[in-house]
């Protein structure tokens, strides 16, 4: 069981009326945080639901720790903590009731850690869920998932309703999970700043397809925006891996997705500045580039 990847998708296809997730192959390795980024409607939540066995693929295979999903979902979920912004607790019960409930189901429940998180998240066991704000409810859901010390945490927009302080706290708990190298996290979020910070690996999804998946540092090293000034009459040397080009008059900006020292050498003196790109900028440029190539 420990030799299996926490998540494995092989050629997964899922068709809906207006949207199809197609040929999705994805691996999450143990001890990794994978950030899952995509525009709205790209298929992030669909992918996560397929992973949890809430949807059945039309083709292909989904396995969690080697368990085939959705058939073995009840067994697989013993080692998983799944949190989504689309879930809520029993509104009329208390935080404490939920703690006892979940603690009685999961043998790996860590009561001390649960108490620590209660303090850290500023929640009290006597509080009724109904009386909590949406951010606090989300924190409660996260607490219940974290305190069972799962081997895999699947998070779908977990910080959607959070103020910056709460986000900072929660992000700290996520990276803390990985102190144990046998535990992993799949983290889907619009918040590219957070994803950029804590992810080891990043997968981009757009319109039902996985368009890119590599180590975060790879992304950050390969992508650059280069500002150029080419005097009138002169032409720009052709360089490979240009995915975006904008110019007015003498000035141009190139977006490169495989930057090397060679690139600069080839461009020579035309280069005015080289900018690294944030994950958000890479993501937008990557999506635009793929949409263009797909339509052509």
């Amino acid at each position: 069981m420990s030799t299996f990847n926490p998540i494995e998708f092989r050629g997964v296809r899922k068709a809906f009326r207006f949207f199809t997730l197609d040929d999705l192959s994805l691996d999450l390795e143990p001890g990794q945080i994978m950030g899952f980024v995509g525009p709205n409607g790209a298929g992030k939540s669909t992918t996560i639901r397929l992973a949890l066995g809430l949807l059945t693929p039309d083709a292909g295979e989904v396995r969690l720790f080697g368990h085939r999903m959705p058939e073995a979902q009840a067994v697989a979920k013993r080692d998983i903590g799944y949190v989504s912004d689309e879930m809520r607790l029993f509104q009329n019960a208390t935080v404490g009731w939920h703690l006892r409930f979940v603690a009685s189901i999961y043998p790996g429940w860590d009561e001390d850690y649960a108490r620590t998180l209660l303090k850290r998240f500023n929640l009290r066991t006597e509080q009724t869920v109904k009386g909590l704000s949406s951010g606090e409810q989300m924190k409660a859901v996260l607490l219940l998932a974290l305190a069972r010390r799962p081997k895999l945490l699947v998070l779908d927009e977990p910080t959607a309703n959070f103020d910056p302080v709460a986000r900072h706290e929660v992000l700290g708990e996520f990276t803390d999970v990985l102190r144990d190298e046998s535990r992993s996290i799949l983290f889907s979020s619009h918040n590219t700043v957070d994803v950029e910070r804590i992810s080891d690996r990043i997968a981009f999804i757009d319109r039902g397809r996985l368009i890119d998946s590599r180590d975060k540092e790879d992304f950050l090293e390969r992508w650059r925006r280069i500002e150029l000034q080419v005097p009138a009459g002169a032409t720009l040397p052709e360089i490979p891996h240009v995915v975006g080009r904008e110019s007015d008059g003498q000035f141009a900006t190139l977006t490169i997705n495989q930057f090397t020292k060679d690139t600069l050498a080839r461009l020579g003196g035309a280069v005015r500045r080289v900018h690294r790109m944030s994950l958000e900028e890479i993501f937008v440029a990557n999506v635009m580039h793929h949409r263009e190539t797909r339509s052509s």
Partner: protein
Amino acid sequence: MYSGIHISQTDERPMYLQIMEQIRQRIAAGDWAAGKELPSIRALAAGLSVSVITVKRAYLDLESEGVIVTRHGKGSFVAEVNGLAGELQEAKLDEHLEAAAVIARGLGLTDEELAARLRRAARDLEKKK
């Protein structure tokens, strides 16, 4: 042990470089003495709330600079002889200067023009700080 290390995401410099610089500072200042064991990659990542891969990269680069030494299975330690780190940095500098000279030759710059550009670059660096 490392609560003073701070990673800024609005800084132009990548996170792994920030980590490297702050570790080098501590070693140079003597806070982290020669032979001292560094926190494990995972522990530092968790402590700074950054990805493991970023810390891994920082440690790998620090090791190739000779600033730290990694003993397989045991951990990473501040290198005993830190003069070595200086030598490696100087070798790196020479490498970069050679590459710059090649480009300059390609552009038809004279040695004086190249030197002037280098001085301007150094001045710009000061301005940025």
